[in-house]
């Protein structure tokens, strides 16, 4: 464990050195600020109250969109796994959502709705098809022999959901969250850069670019990366706690 942490630390240090070296070669903070200068600026920003307000507003916007998409994706997956005709209707819609470039969505939605809600919608559009596809696959791939066992032993519909469908689908759900949350966060920030809500990380990034404050741009980008890592760890931790069975996650690991 300690060895692994030390190895990770050394790898991070290596890349920080590469960054520092490149910055020294370029020799112009305006083009490529050094990691030390960036971290210093990040600490300065972190010392202000508005920094946390901005982060919280961006987080709230993107998490609301993500949560809504997760709920809708799971509900749709349950229905489309049950009704083939509904699957046939929903499937092309999801394919289109996945295929349309995020930038097109942002520009189009800017014409239709308010700038505050746009990042939520963009995050939702990223998460929805991934969650829907994974959860539906999980439901459809549930071991038929276990379902037959449940039938023989007269398990109630709720018993089947609790004992078979949920544990069998959970690995797919976790995998969908793992792959979509990072994307949703990044797409949400990109939407903020274009939509410019009043208080948002995206707006800070846009203004950094506008006033050629490259150090600020790097500091805010680093903030986005750090939050992305924290969210990912928190979600996996929460799911592990909620399921209470390490075996489900081991099965998930095997499936991955």
């Amino acid at each position: 464990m300690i060895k692994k942490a030390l190895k990770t630390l050394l790898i991070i240090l290596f890349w920080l050195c590469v960054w520092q070296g490149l910055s020294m070669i370029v020799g112009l903070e305006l083009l490529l600020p050094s990691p030390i200068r960036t971290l210093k600026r990040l600490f300065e920003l972190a010392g202000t109250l508005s920094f946390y307000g901005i982060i919280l507003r961006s987080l709230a916007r993107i998490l609301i969109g993500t949560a809504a998409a997760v709920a809708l994706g799971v509900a749709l997956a349950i229905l489309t796994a049950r009704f083939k005709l509904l699957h046939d209707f929903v499937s092309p819609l999801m394919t289109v959502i996945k295929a349309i470039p995020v930038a097109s969505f942002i520009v189009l939605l800017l014409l239709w709705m308010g700038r505050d809600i746009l990042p939520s919608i963009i995050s939702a559009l990223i998460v929805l098809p991934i969650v829907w596809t994974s959860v539906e696959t999980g439901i459809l791939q549930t071991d038929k022999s276990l379902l037959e066992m449940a039938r023989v032993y007269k398990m109630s519909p709720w018993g089947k959901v609790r004992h078979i469908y949920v544990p069998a689908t959970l690995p797919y759900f976790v995998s969908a969250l793992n792959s979509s949350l990072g994307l949703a966060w990044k797409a949400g920030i990109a939407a903020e850069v274009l939509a410019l809500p009043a208080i948002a990380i995206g707006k800070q990034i846009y203004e950094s670019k506008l006033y050629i404050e490259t150090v600020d741009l790097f500091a805010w980008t680093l903030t986005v990366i750090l939050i992305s890592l924290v969210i990912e760890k928190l979600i996996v931790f929460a799911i592990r706690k909620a399921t209470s069975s390490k075996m489900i996650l081991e099965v998930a690991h095997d499936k991955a």
Partner: protein
Amino acid sequence: MIRLENIVKKYGDNIVLDNFSLELSRGERLAIMGESGCGKTTLLRIIAGLTEADGGEISRNGDISYMFQEPRLLPWKTAEENVCAVLGKKNFPLAQRYLSLVGLADANKKYPRELSGGMAQRVAFARFLAFAEETGADILLLDEPFSALDSETEAQMLNILLDFAADKTVILVTHDDDTAQKLGGMVVKM
């Protein structure tokens, strides 16, 4: 209790059961033997209502407990939880009793992947018995239930079954002549 009349079952052009008839009264026992693929499992599944016959008539009176050839345990649940999953609420004592009976009192917290093939089959046997007791099932259908066990354990499990099924109708599919004889009822070779 169980009556099959002229049962026909085909898979494509392959006729597995051709006008098969059988009648069993309460408390009667039947061992079914035969080559692989001759329709033993299909017959058991038709009696249990898991597979539909292509022709003929079936009537049965009573609840069924069925033991599959494979353990079919939930991989995310312990041995004890696997037994409890098919029982009513708060029936851990019943699960523990049957796990002890099949010699797995110490393994009740283990997950299926931590069990040997024989142990997993005994967990499935405990589940089968516990379900039969809870529901009062009087028809017991077993599809090669002890195939993964050594002969000594198989004999112990068969004795447990014979004690448990004193007044129940039992149909057991087996490859083993000795097991078929020990069941103490009719033997059908398909």
